[in-house]
Structure formats: C-alpha cells, structure tokens
C-alpha cells in the first residue's frame, strides 16, 4: 500500500501560492472531526500584501477590452469544469449537506462564471447612457472600475457565494482581495489553483483564508480598498460600514443567509454596484 500524498493548502495572492507571513495555521477538520490539512491563518499584513498585488494588477485588467475579459472568464469556467468533481469534494469535505448539494453548487458556480463572462462587453449598454441635455453638448455617462474591491464570502455555499460576490467585481474591471469562508475555506484554495491556469492575470483575484473577526476591520479600514462586497450579518455590516466611512468606501452588504443559487444574482446591476459612473461633457461646435 502506498501512502497518499496530502496537499499543503496555500492561498493564492499575486499569482503565487503563499503561506501566511505570520506563520500561523488553522487545522481543517472534516465532518467527522478528522484532521484534513492545515490552512493559512492570514494576517492584516497578508491583507496589505494582497491589496498591493491587486492594486498592481488593476490598470492592466481594467485596460483590457470587454471581449478579452469575457474570454478569460470563460476560460475559468473551462478550468472549473474539468475539475468539477474535485471541487464538489472540496465543498462537501467540511459540511454535512444533503446528497448532491455540493455537485449542484459547483454546477451553479460554473454557470455563474459563464453568465458573467458574457456581461463584460454588454453591461455598459445597460448601465450607461447618452444624456439629452438642454444645450449644444454631447453628454454621456460611462462606467469605470472602482479599483480594489474587498470580498467577504459567506459560510453557506462557500464556493458559489464567493463567486457570486467576486464575479461582478472582476467583470467590471476591478481587482479583488477576497476572504474565504472561515468554516469552509477549502473550495477557495482549489479555486485559486484554477484561477492560476485560467489566463486571469496574477493579482486580479487574491484569495485569503483566516479569521473573519480578525480580518473584517482591516478590510473595512484599508484605504486602498475602494469597495466591499460582503456577505455580512447586521453586526458585521456595522463594523464594515464604520471602518469604510473613514475613507467613504462603498459597501455592498448581502444577507449571509441568502439563497445563493437564486438567479437574481445574475444581474448587471451587481456589476454596476462596483463601478463608478463618469459623466463627460463635450461642447458641439466648429
């Protein structure tokens, strides 16, 4: 009998697989309480490093055409599809969910990636406008990414929930630093491996694992994070909003108990929540 090679789970930051700079880990256990692996317990310093990576990747990602971003996102769906079984196992590993739920979650997650891949070159047509002002001006409103977006994933539907919050951000050209579910972080570890081979440039999506209580205030207060998309309880929302107010950061708070499978999350308005509208006036004249 040959001994199984177990994986050392690492976080995906700046296109590389890292351990926490703090050297801390948290043991992950399966539903029966058995040891699975040690996961990084990321620190505020890890968050700062991830924000730096996300900020560095921002202009390049925002500068790509919608068509290009769409193909890259679709490529992520291809990478997930080929490892769908493994993803489902990762969802099921910590939970006691009913039969088939993990598989359904992975299917829904892949479908959502494909959905948003198709929005990259279309949301502007829905959200933007040419404005008929009373005067000789060509006036229009277009949308631009906010920059670095912080994502706080829910424990329920740890893969689908994470992607539901993360996809609108990167579809619109933002870059992301996400905190994976604390209770079920393993799908985010696998997702990192798929992001790494999906043509999404390093730094566009950065995934951290660690303690919510420890990291939420740091997400809220970091001035370079310009928006938060968070599955957060009322108490957590207050923490996030209070920290965010120091730099007038946008906060999109979702109910952590939401039905993440619902197609109401398939929407260009979720992309719009993480974009800035810019209105430009041009005089019309000789």
């Amino acid at each position, binding site marked *: 009998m040959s001994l199984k090679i177990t994986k050392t789970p690492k976080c995906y930051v700046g296109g590389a697989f890292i351990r926490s700079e703090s050297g801390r880990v948290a043991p992950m256990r399966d539903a029966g309480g058995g040891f699975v692996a040690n996961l990084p317990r990321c620190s505020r310093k890890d968050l700062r490093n991830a924000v730096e990576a996300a900020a560095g990747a921002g202009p390049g990602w925002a500068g790509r055409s919608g068509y290009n971003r769409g193909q890259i996102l679709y490529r992520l769906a291809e990478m997930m599809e080929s490892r769908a079984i493994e993803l489902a196992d990762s969802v099921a590993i910590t939970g006691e969910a009913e039969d088939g739920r993990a598989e359904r979650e992975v299917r829904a997650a892949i479908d959502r990636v494909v959905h948003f891949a198709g929005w990259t070159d279309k949301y502007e047509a829905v959200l933007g406008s040419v404005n008929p002002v009373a005067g000789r001006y060509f006036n229009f409103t277009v949308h631009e990414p906010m920059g670095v977006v912080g994502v706080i994933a829910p424990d329920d539907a740890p893969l689908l929930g994470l992607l539901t919050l993360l996809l609108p951000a990167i579809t619109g050209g933002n870059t992301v630093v996400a905190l994976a579910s604390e209770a079920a972080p393993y799908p985010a570890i696998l997702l990192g491996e798929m992001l790494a081979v999906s043509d999404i440039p390093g730094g566009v999506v950065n995934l951290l694992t660690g303690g919510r209580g420890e990291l939420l205030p740091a997400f809220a207060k970091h001035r370079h994070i310009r928006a938060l998309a968070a599955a957060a309880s009322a108490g957590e929302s207050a923490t996030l909003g209070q920290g965010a107010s120091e730099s007038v950061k946008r906060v999109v708070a979702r109910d952590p108990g939401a039905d993440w499978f619902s197609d109401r999350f398939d929407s260009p*308005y979720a992309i719009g929540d993480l974009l800035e509208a810019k209105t430009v006036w041009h005089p019309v004249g000789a």
Partner: protein
Amino acid sequence: MPAKKTSAASKPTAPPARELLFGDLWEYDPAPESAPAFIDDRYPLFIGGEFTAPKSKRYFDSLSPRDESRLTRIADGGKADVDAAYAAATKAFPGWSAMPGAERGKYLFRIARLLQDRAREFAVAETLDGGKPIRESRDFDVPMAAAHFFYHAGWADKLAYLAPGRVPRPLGVAGQVIPWNFPLLMLAWKIAPALAAGNTVVLKPAETTSVTAMKFATILRDAELPPGVVNLVSGGRETGAAVVTHPGAAKVAFTGSTGVGKWIQHALAGTGRRLTLELGGKAANIIFDDAPLDQAVEGVINGIFFNQGHVCCAGSRLLVQESVAETVVRKLEIRMRSLRTGDPLDKNTDVGAINSQGQLEKIRELVRAGIDEGARIHQPACKLPERGWYFPPTLFSGVTMSQRVAREEIFGPVLSILTFRTPAEAVEKANNTAYGLSAGVWTDKGSRVFKIASELKAGVVWANTYNKFDPASPFGGYRESGFGREGGRKGMLEYLSLEAP
C-alpha cells in the same frame, strides 16, 4: 526650398489685444434688482401639509450676507419636530407610492410651472438669503430648479423603463439634508427624483439658507400636493443629525462636507438604510498648450468664481502646461480685473457676498496659509462694500502640491495655479487628492480629450467647458467626494429598489 517651420515658437505672434483700462475714471451706476421677494417675518416648519410652529418653540435669526441685516426668523426644529415630520411622511407614503405614476407626475409638473411663475420672486429671495449674484439666481438656480421638477415629472409613469429586467419599487421615506450653496436647486435635486419614484420626503434646508425652502412650501400648498408627501424641517446641526439618523428613513441623501458625510456613513453603518452622499471636491482644471486659451481662461474664471466659489465641483486647482503658464496667468489677471465684486442684488455683479461670517473666516484663514506657505497671491484692486461679507477674487500662482491651498477645499473665490510638463504629470497631479468629484480639460486635440477624460478619477468631466449642469446629466463623485448620482436615469435609481420580476 527650406522646410517650413511648424513649431509653435516660430508662429508669427499677433500683437496682444489692447486692454481697456478705465481705472476709477467712471463709477458704475447701481443696477439693483427691484422685484419684491415677499419674505415673511418668520418661518415655522412645514409638516403634514401645514405650516407648523416648532415644538421646540425656538427660532433663530437668518442674516443677509449682503449687509448682515436680519432677513427673517427661522424655526429651529427639534427632535420632536423631526419625529412629527417622519410620522407625516410615513403616513403619506402608502397613498403616494400607490398613486398611478402619471398622476404623481402631474403634481411635479405643477410644481415646476408654479416655480417658473414665481421665478423672479424666488431669485431675489435666494440672493438676499444666500448672497449669490442675482444674475446667477435668476438665470441659473431658479430656472434649473424648475427644470429638475419638469424633467423628473416625466419619469414618474416610466419607472419600468429605468432598469431592464428588474421591477423598481419606491423605498419609503427619504431623509434629505442639503447645503447652503444652491439652496433651492439642491432642494429640487433631492425632492424631484424622490417624489417621482414614489417616496415621501423629510428635508432639512441649510441653517443659513432656509428662506427659499420655506417659500417653496407655499408652492407645494398651491400645487395641492397631498399632505405629508414633503415635510420641511429647518434647523441647525442637531436637527440635521436627527433627520439623517431617524429610524423612519428608508433612504438618506446628503449633500455637504466630506467630514459630515463620513459621520453620516458611520452613523448609518449596519442599518441597511440606503445612503447617497455628495461631498466635497478639489477639482483640477487642466489647460494644455494647444488649448484655445481665451476660451479656457473664460472657463477657468467661471469654474472658480461662479457662486463665489461656493461650489463643490469648483475648478479650484488650475493645472497649466508650463509652456503657456505665464500667458494664462497674465490673461487671468486681466480678466479678473473686470469682475465686479459687490452687492449681489446688483444685476451687474459677478462675485457676490460670502454666505456667512464663518465661511469668510475659513477662506481668510486658508488664504493666509497660502501666503505663509510661499504661494504668490494675485488680487485685483476692488472696492468691497463696507457692510456684508465679501472676499475679492483671488489667484495663487507658483503653488505646489503639498500646500494647503492645493489640497483643502476652500469653498471660496480662490484659485490655486500649478504647472505640469507632460499629460501623464497632469493626470498624476489631478488625481493626487482624496476627492474625485469633477475635473476639466482644455485642449484642441479630440483624441487627447477622450484619453485624459478617461484617466481622470472624477464623476463629472467637462471637456473644453466647465460648470455645466442639467437634470438629465448624472452628477456625483468618486472616492471621498461621495457615492451615488443625482440626475438622469442613474439619479432615479438611487430612489428605487430593483426587484427580480
């Protein structure tokens, strides 16, 4: 045949236009606007469709910035008054939101028309109360306020077209707090979309400029707007805090300083109430060397001296390409000499009175800081009225990025001039601020306009123009200039929740 030289330096220079200097040779005759403003001795609150004495029993004096005289007395709404206003708005919400959109729209059309009927009266009142030149209140503030009601009236029965794939629903009671720089216009920006979307309103006008808001209540009454749909609670800081933190609000909209905006965001954190903030700015107006300089100078003057610079989107930082900096500063100095600063009620006045003593002190303090930090000050010789709060139009040249006059919002007629060499440097300097409300770019090159406009981190960019506004045009900022937009389709969506069908 030698190649034709094309560099700018070799262009034959036209003789400079001659400047006509009259000096003190002739005095301008006064040309005061004489239409009556019909300002009452005192104004109570407007709650549930009735003029209501404040439960607080307190009134405060409202002074006219033009001569520091007492204009009227304004009710100082207390917490119980704010509660009463929310109760009235909450009671009115079911009926107002269930009313067919076309009917709601008719009320807004009526309001727009009634405001147009009494435009001159409102313009004079606005100028007496706030200090802005009558030319601006008459030609900009009041007509634009009416335009906002007219524009949004038309949305009331067309909400279904705002967001494809979603069903829009009104939110409930909107708590709104507005600033003193465009009192009636900001009221229109807040009330018109809220009502068109089917919400009801509790609004607090600014402490120093409540007159036109309270006069507006008579228009609501004449329009027969159902009681409680709009409630106006005047007062100071505490009244404002009560309005924005009231649990009866489903939505809070605030226009004012970034400091107060942060306080509100902190206070509302975790409540789930919708919030839009339109806060401060430190806009860059960028002039490239190929720009039509006379046109640009005119735009810069308008950008900073419009409404005495009491404009959140004022072009208060001028970034000029080094090669034309000297020319631009000279042209600005010449243009500044013909600005008339003085009695805002005079139809020839360009720069009126500073809104309050406190604001005047703040401007003076920052201008002193500019001088202390080594910037060169330029002020035209002008005689200011002996009574009232006035500040002459002011330029600072040789300003560097770290100086306070380049970083802090002055909210007065003070322009800071910096220079740059390359487009990249211009963008870097323009974006080097926590704010991001507006920006201007002046160049003759179309492709450069689009490139620079796309790189500026600002919610509104004016290309070869400045300080243009329209109800159809979304307005609002990036970063610490706030979030949310007012005007156009985007502005309507701030007052609706989008539900899946």
